[in-house]
């Protein structure tokens, strides 16, 4: 299985970096105001927003090729959480569109979102 590419520095993301933890809760509300809550996910799912700037053309191209070979959100890859080093073996890109901007040969920027999958 492929892995999310790293930059030339060896880093995966740049500051400001964002990571989210997501649960899924079903809430049933009754007429008397009481409610019952049901756990949707057995365990939470992670999501990382990877916003990259000051990329050179090689780095930007590598990310673009990764996006393409992953068929957007269709394929799965392993992602190492930069916060704690945990390897999440079943992740995919969130969304089927990748926008890039190249302001100079060493001033490329793009944003990708990685989501953890189940099943």
């Amino acid at each position, binding site marked *: 299985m492929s892995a999310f590419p790293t930059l030339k520095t060896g880093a995966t993301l740049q500051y400001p970096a964002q990571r989210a933890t997501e649960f899924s809760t079903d809430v049933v509300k009754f007429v008397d105001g009481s409610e019952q809550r049901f756990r949707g996910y057995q365990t939470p799912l992670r999501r990382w927003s990877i916003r990259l700037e000051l990329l050179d053309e*090689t780095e930007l191209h590598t990310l673009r090729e990764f996006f393409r070979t992953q068929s957007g959100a269709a394929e799965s890859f392993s992602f190492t959480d930069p916060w704690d080093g945990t390897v999440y073996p079943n992740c995919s890109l969130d969304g089927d*569109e990748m926008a890039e901007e190249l302001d100079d040969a060493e001033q490329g920027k793009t944003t990708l979102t990685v989501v953890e*999958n189940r099943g």
Partner: protein
Amino acid sequence: MLYYPQLSTGAVSQFPIGRQTTLRTVSNTLPSGATIRMSDPGSAAVGWQLQYANLTDAEWLSLEQLFEGAEGQLTTFTFLDPMDNLLLWSEDWTKTVWTADPLINVSGGVADPVGGNGAMQITNTAQTTQRIVQNVAGPSWFQYCCSIYLRAAAPTAVQIFLSATGQESLTQVQVTSSWIRAVKADSLSLQEDGISFGLQLPAGASIVAFGAQAEPQPAPGYYKKTTDLAGVYPNTRFDSDSLTQTTNAPNQNSCAVTLVSTLT
């Protein structure tokens, strides 16, 4: 055949360049959070946002002529992506897109200059010069820059070239035991569809090559590894039926162009 024009500098575009890749995935999300995802490769598309400033009248005219020739977004033309490498399989010259003369041996898995094993050993076992070449569906008269990283255990001289039927431009390069990036930048006067980029080795020469790249510009850019998709888009269209010219002074024009293509 219509081609998106180069500027007088030999570049296709100016900074900043915007690019979007749009794919399609059919996704079924289950209550547990599990997903079933399938790709729809037929809908893959790419778009570019190009902004031009200080275009000469001649440069503007070439853009306008293409717009009129393509009748807005009606018909297609070939666009050479300024953010990409025009050569396919830049690190695997055993693929069929590379045409080698009969006695050229190519083997992969050799240490490359960026710390991987993406380089190839290329040996000419013939008694005469032999070539390995890739054809690109671009216009022969554009300004191109071809670059290849080269090294050889025994110093030798090879030639890097671009050619079309009936005309070619070669540059001799001294290859030593240290990696160099051999560069050949030129434009042919011949006007035909298609151009080839390659290497010519003298009899008995053996070199290590890595990272072949061709770009529609006068100097080499950062290396971009390619596999089965390169920067030649023959089904490109304007994304609009309107093209607006702003003239800021005599011979100084500006405009913004949006292009779209299938991702093939």
